[in-house]
């Protein structure tokens, strides 16, 4: 599935290192039309990625051949299911270079992972007056859980400002640290600006100040090599569905001493050792945090999704997306009515933009008629929208199966937008 040769007619435009045409054959959905004669051009990958056939097959294989509950039954199916479920945990461990698979907690997604930390760590360790630092580019899922825990504990949330070109203002961050700082929670890659944050440096700053570091990898893990030990973060969270995996499964990585010290998040079956009527003892991490029957098929599916993207290579994926992003950014510059947000240099494959005189929802509707799926709205980042002084933006987000041809289709759809909205004065009498 991965290939270094680009023996394709469109070699001139094609970024080296990835046989995209061949890869696209692995994704059945990429072959469909969304309107008559309009094949799908899927540029909403930051919302969720598409799934390769191998992941889809492994989900039905589980249900067809070894569906059983995990860690319970003393029978073959349960043993097989448990094996596959725990093997997927090991794949996740290696994927993010965690110390051990016991540092990997299954959740239903990045959002739940952050809520888990906010509740299991935050409610236990935060005290009135303690400070949590978040940035203005965070997704609501890295804001609201902290607001809830701050309200419950008397802790306080402070915001890291952004520079004009859409980076975190590290000088401002430096001024925010004090003896009350307990946690810095920052995204690895902005889901609006595409900014890739220097999370390793920030973790170092946090640790110097005696604070912990949580990295929101929802947009990071899927698109670039990730090494939590090199990053030296204390918590790392991401979702399976944004990286070719199923919905309903996500990951919390945390350092061992933290997982030991944290309270359980939810109580129930699976997570206990001994239960009495009025008290219980709990399993060791990570199982202490996995109450109830987990999303077994989804966890197993995520393991295979990781096999799939690792086989292509995270470096290769990142390079291909950067090439496509640069290609799109360069050509969008020719539209004098388009404003692109975020850094100009290195960034992830996400481009948010507005068009003068045209609301992002109108852009989305018009390009959809050309088969182009993009996102319009506030992208669950309202504080950032306020900073950018826009109500919403349109956004394309790229994955490794996208092509320059698709970017061209998107650009040509933008000219349609301009045709409809650009000359309204002349068109109406």
């Amino acid at each position, binding site marked *: 599935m991965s290939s270094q040769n680009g023996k394709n007619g469109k070699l001139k435009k094609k970024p080296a290192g990835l046989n995209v045409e061949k890869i696209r054959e692995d994704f059945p959905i990429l072959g469909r039309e969304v309107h008559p004669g309009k094949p799908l051009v899927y540029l909403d990958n930051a919302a969720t990625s598409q799934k390769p056939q191998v992941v889809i097959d492994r989900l039905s294989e589980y249900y067809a051949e070894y569906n059983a509950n995990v860690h319970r039954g003393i029978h073959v199916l349960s043993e097989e299911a448990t094996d596959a479920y725990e093997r997927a945990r090991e794949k996740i461990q290696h994927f993010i270079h965690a110390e051990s698979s016991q540092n990997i907690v299954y959740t239903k997604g990045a959002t739940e992972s952050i809520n888990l930390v906010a509740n299991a760590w935050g409610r236990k360790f935060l005290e009135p007056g303690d400070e949590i630092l978040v940035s203005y580019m965070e997704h609501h899922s890295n804001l609201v859980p902290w607001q809830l825990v701050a309200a419950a504990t008397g802790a306080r949330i402070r915001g890291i400002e952004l520079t004009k070109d859409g980076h975190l203002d590290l000088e401002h961050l430096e001024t925010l640290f004090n003896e009350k700082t307990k946690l810095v929670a920052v995204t690895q890659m902005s889901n609006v600006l595409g900014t890739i944050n220097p999370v390793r440096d920030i973790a170092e700053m946090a640790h110097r100040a005696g604070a912990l570091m949580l990295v929101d990898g929802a947009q990071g893990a899927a698109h670039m090599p990730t090494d939590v030990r090199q990053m030296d973060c204390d918590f790392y969270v991401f979702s399976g569905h944004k990286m070719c995996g199923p919905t309903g499964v996500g990951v919390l990585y945390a350092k061992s001493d933290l997982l030991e010290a944290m309270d359980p998040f939810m109580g129930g079956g699976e997570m206990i050792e001994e239960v009495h009527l009025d008290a219980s003892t709990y399993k060791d991490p990570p199982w202490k945090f996995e109450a109830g029957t987990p999303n077994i098929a989804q966890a197993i599916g995520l393991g295979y999704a990781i096999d799939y993207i690792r086989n292509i290579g995270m470096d290769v994926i990142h390079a291909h997306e950067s090439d496509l992003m640069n290609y799109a950014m360069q050509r969008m510059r020719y539209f004098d009515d388009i404003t692109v947000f975020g850094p100009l240099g290195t960034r992830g494959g996400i481009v948010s933009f507005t068009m003068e005189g045209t609301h992002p929802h109108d852009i989305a509707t018009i390009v959809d008629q050309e088969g182009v799926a993009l996102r319009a709205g506030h992208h669950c980042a309202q504080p950032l929208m306020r900073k950018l002084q826009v109500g919403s933006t349109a956004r394309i987000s790229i994955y490794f199966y996208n092509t320059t041809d698709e970017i061209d289709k998107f650009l040509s759809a933008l000219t349609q937008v301009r045709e409809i909205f650009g000359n*309204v004065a002349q068109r109406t009498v």
Partner: protein
Amino acid sequence: MSLNGLYKEVILDHYRAPRHRGIIEEPSFQEGGHNPSCGDTLEIFVRLDDQDVIQAICFEGHGCSISMASSSMMTEIMEGKSLEEALDIVRIFEGMMQGEAEFPDTDEYLDVISLKGVADFPVRLKCATLAWDTVKRGITRYQSSEKMAEE
């Protein structure tokens, strides 16, 4: 389903040159509307005469072409109507968007009838209905507060 049905010239015209856009100082009532998923916001201001007829109606807000054009058309139609007439018109509008009612085929309703095409784009329906939901809520609230004041 084509874009021509959605982006009719009359809709784009209302979007680019909205009627009744602005605020009314000391209105008889005002009402806010909001589409949280897309961030569209709307504030409608209404001034009534002593017979409870809409003497002036304005809107202010941010949103897509459909929501702004629909607001413009709504305010244009509502001017000069009694509150009961206004509620009837909202009901017909709601029915039209569900394919269950029609406005009379007269000049007065020509513009608003053009919004019918939005029904082919289900995700955009709420853009078209925001102004009408908002004015309906505003009228209902006004009427119940008047009733309470009488009692």
